[in-house]
């Protein structure tokens, strides 16, 4: 991070100087614009290549963001998740019924008029057919009515919630379309019986949007589970988190561990990490390629205009003004590409995709969302390309010996 900052420092300083030069010096910007226009083919093709790279950059960014968005915003400060030690994901965890009884009446757990705010849950994965004809693992979560109340980010959109004992499920709205079987009013087959789909929910971009929900006892019965998977509890006060974690750790009967709900969700975001790293590498390499291309175009532009540069110098433009002028030309060229590329990326907006998280061994649905922020990053990225790619050619233009330039090379 510090290294990146140090690297960016000269760039930012240079950019500031360029902006200042625009105000303080007489830069023949209109001349540069006309020059770009005059070499239409060259300008457009360079801009198009830059647009493609910026497009890839923005799409990869939105992919990484979509993947991490699928996990964040889950979890409350005052809620803790109890799991088996070393389980690392809810799927791997088991909690026996007797331990569950001990935990639910723990003095630190918040109670309201209905009872303790603690939800014993079971998490299994089941193969579901996807629209493209393959099967993928989807998390099926069985939970108690309290579990729904403890997750305010989850809202019912259509239909109603499942009722215990009736083999009913609710499915996330986001999974519809990718999973043709999951339509309201339809049914899914799990554990040898048919489950009616009675409602759809919106999970506020949390990982719950990749899960099918049903009643905990129904799921345990269907999947022949004798033990629960995890327990979600709300504490009386977020400040008692450490005390609760310690208490669970110290209780020799339990042999379980508690962790803050937020911390658990944070470990899940690692699923997006490999894609992010790969995406960043790809864009980094392609940026190099695009900078070379921009350099080539600008060198050609400078070489073809030796006489013009000479004239500018003869008219009284100073070397630094020529430098700024040509640098602006390169930046404008790349900005055109950047704007085009960000626009191009919009085509990916809204496309739904899915991959499997190897943390939870189940499907993660996500959507490409090209936000204005991402597009701005794309444009800023093209600005950097213009600065880096245009510097050497602009420098060369400003250093052309006056006599040679006048002769016209």
């Amino acid at each position, binding site marked *: 991070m510090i290294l990146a900052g140090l690297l960016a420092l000269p760039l930012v300083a240079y950019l500031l100087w360029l902006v200042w030069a625009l105000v303080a010096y007489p830069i023949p910007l209109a001349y540069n614009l006309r020059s770009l226009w005059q070499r239409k*083919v*060259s300008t457009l*093709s*360079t801009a*198009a*290549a830059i647009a*493609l*790279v910026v*497009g*890839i950059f923005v*799409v*990869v960014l939105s*992919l990484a963001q979509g993947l991490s968005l699928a996990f964040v915003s889950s979890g409350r400060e005052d809620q803790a998740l109890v799991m*088996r*030690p*070393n*389980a*690392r*994901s809810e*799927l*791997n965890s*088991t909690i026996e019924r007797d331990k569950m009884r001990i935990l639910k009446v723990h003095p630190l757990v918040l109670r309201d008029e209905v009872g303790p705010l603690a939800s014993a849950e079971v998490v*299994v*994965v*089941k*193969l579901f057919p996807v629209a493209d004809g*393959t*099967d*993928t*693992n989807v998390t099926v979560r069985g939970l108690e009515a309290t579990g729904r109340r403890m997750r305010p980010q989850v809202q019912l959109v259509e239909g109603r919630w499942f009722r215990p004992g009736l083999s009913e499920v609710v499915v996330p709205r986001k999974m519809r379309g990718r999973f043709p079987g999951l339509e309201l009013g339809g049914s899914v087959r*799990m*554990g*040898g019986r048919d489950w009616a789909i009675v409602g759809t929910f919106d999970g506020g971009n949390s990982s719950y949007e990749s899960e099918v929900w049903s009643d905990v006892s129904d799921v345990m019965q269907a*999947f022949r589970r*004798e*033990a629960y998977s995890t327990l979600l509890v709300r504490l009386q006060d977020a400040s008692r988190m450490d005390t609760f974690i310690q208490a669970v750790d110290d209780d020799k009967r339990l042999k379980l561990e508690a962790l803050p709900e937020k911390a658990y969700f944070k470990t899940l975001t690692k699923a997006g990490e*490999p*894609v992010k*790293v790969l995406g960043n590498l*790809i864009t980094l*390499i*392609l940026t*190099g*390629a*695009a900078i*070379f*291309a921009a*350099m*080539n*175009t600008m*060198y*050609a532009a400078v070489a073809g205009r030796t006489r013009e540069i000479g004239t500018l110098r003869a008219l009284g433009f100073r070397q630094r003004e020529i430098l700024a002028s040509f640098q602006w030309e390169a930046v404008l060229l790349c900005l055109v590409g950047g704007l085009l590329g960000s626009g191009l990326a919009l085509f990916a907006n809204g496309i739904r*995709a*899915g*991959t*499997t998280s*190897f943390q939870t*061994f189940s*499907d993660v649905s996500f959507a490409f969302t090209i936000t204005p922020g991402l597009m701005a990053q794309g444009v800023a990225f093209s600005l950097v390309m213009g600065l880096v790619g245009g510097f050497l050619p602009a420098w060369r233009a400003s250093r052309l010996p006056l006599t040679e330039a006048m002769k016209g090379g």
Partner: protein
Amino acid sequence: MRWLALIWKSLLRSRRRTLLIVGSLVLSVFTVAVLQSLLTTLDSVTNNPNSGNRLAVRHKSGITQMLPRSYETYLRQQPEVETVCALQWFGGYYQDPRNFFANFASDETTIFQTFREEFGLSSITEAQVKEYLRDGAGCIVGETLALKNGWKVGDVVPLTGTIFPINPRLTIRLIFKSSRPSDENVMHFHYKVLEEGVPRMKGLTGAFWVRVHRPEDIPRLIDRVDRHYANSAYETLTETESAFNLAFVKMLGNISAIIQGITIAVVLAILIVTANTMGTAIRERGPEIAVFRAMGFSASRVLSLLLAEGVLLVALGAALGILLAQAAAGGVRGALGAVMPFFADFEITSATALLCLVGALAVGLLSTFIPAYAATRRPITEGLRSVG
């Protein structure tokens, strides 16, 4: 051959331009080669030549549901079956959770026969196998894995279970060599360790690996097994090992479509950039081309010279890009292999390299043709007029 010198001279006419375009090509071809190799690596997972006569039997609801070990008896009785091996993914780690490798609890009596090719049986002695069978807390590991962790035969390896609540301490009894790196990044230990350590696993297993005598029998057997257990408490899903692996690859979802999309965008970008550069280079040389033609070179001769120049330029960039990708393959293998075991086999195959080269040459031809054709069609007189 005598034209080569001329083409080379033309390329060196503007060294900086040639250098920049080659640099641009090298980076692009490098990216495409690595991305395409990711896809071919995934493909090869589902095309393992050794797996032709193996089947996987698992629970119909998915790999996390268990099947009774007693199914083994029925499977063994089928006339097509050579041997059956119960196999359960243990998902343990050694010291650090990020230190990922495949480890299985497997039926020690049939494991060697079932995965004959993977274990490279010829280099394993009878005594070594006996040693493993005798030690209930023994394990066998692949050479790559052993080298990475500095394990020797006789070392005790403490595994931490993630899926199962046990942390077995296993003694290495055998280190095997395999032809594929991913097959060597594996540990097997006695099934009893799991069954006796985890009460809920008693009499259950995640999957059976079935080896048949002849691959032709596979479709019939699949059908029979699944029909036999249909509507039972534990329904089965039987498929070839390749299909089983394919299910895991498919789990990556639309990632491969994204990779293809990026590849297309990169190829388009190279096409545009190369066309632009070659266009500039040829435009600059308008008078020279006119002189050539005035000297008696035919238009098609000049065209072929220009095309050869574009192709040579692109070939240079592509060759360097592929070499660079080859050099980086080891790094990719290490970095991605730690996340997903398939990628331990990552390599730039000669087929991929060839594809990149051919693709690049096509790009070179295509991008040079338009400006070159236009240049040779210009009237000679017009070109000569601008000779200084």
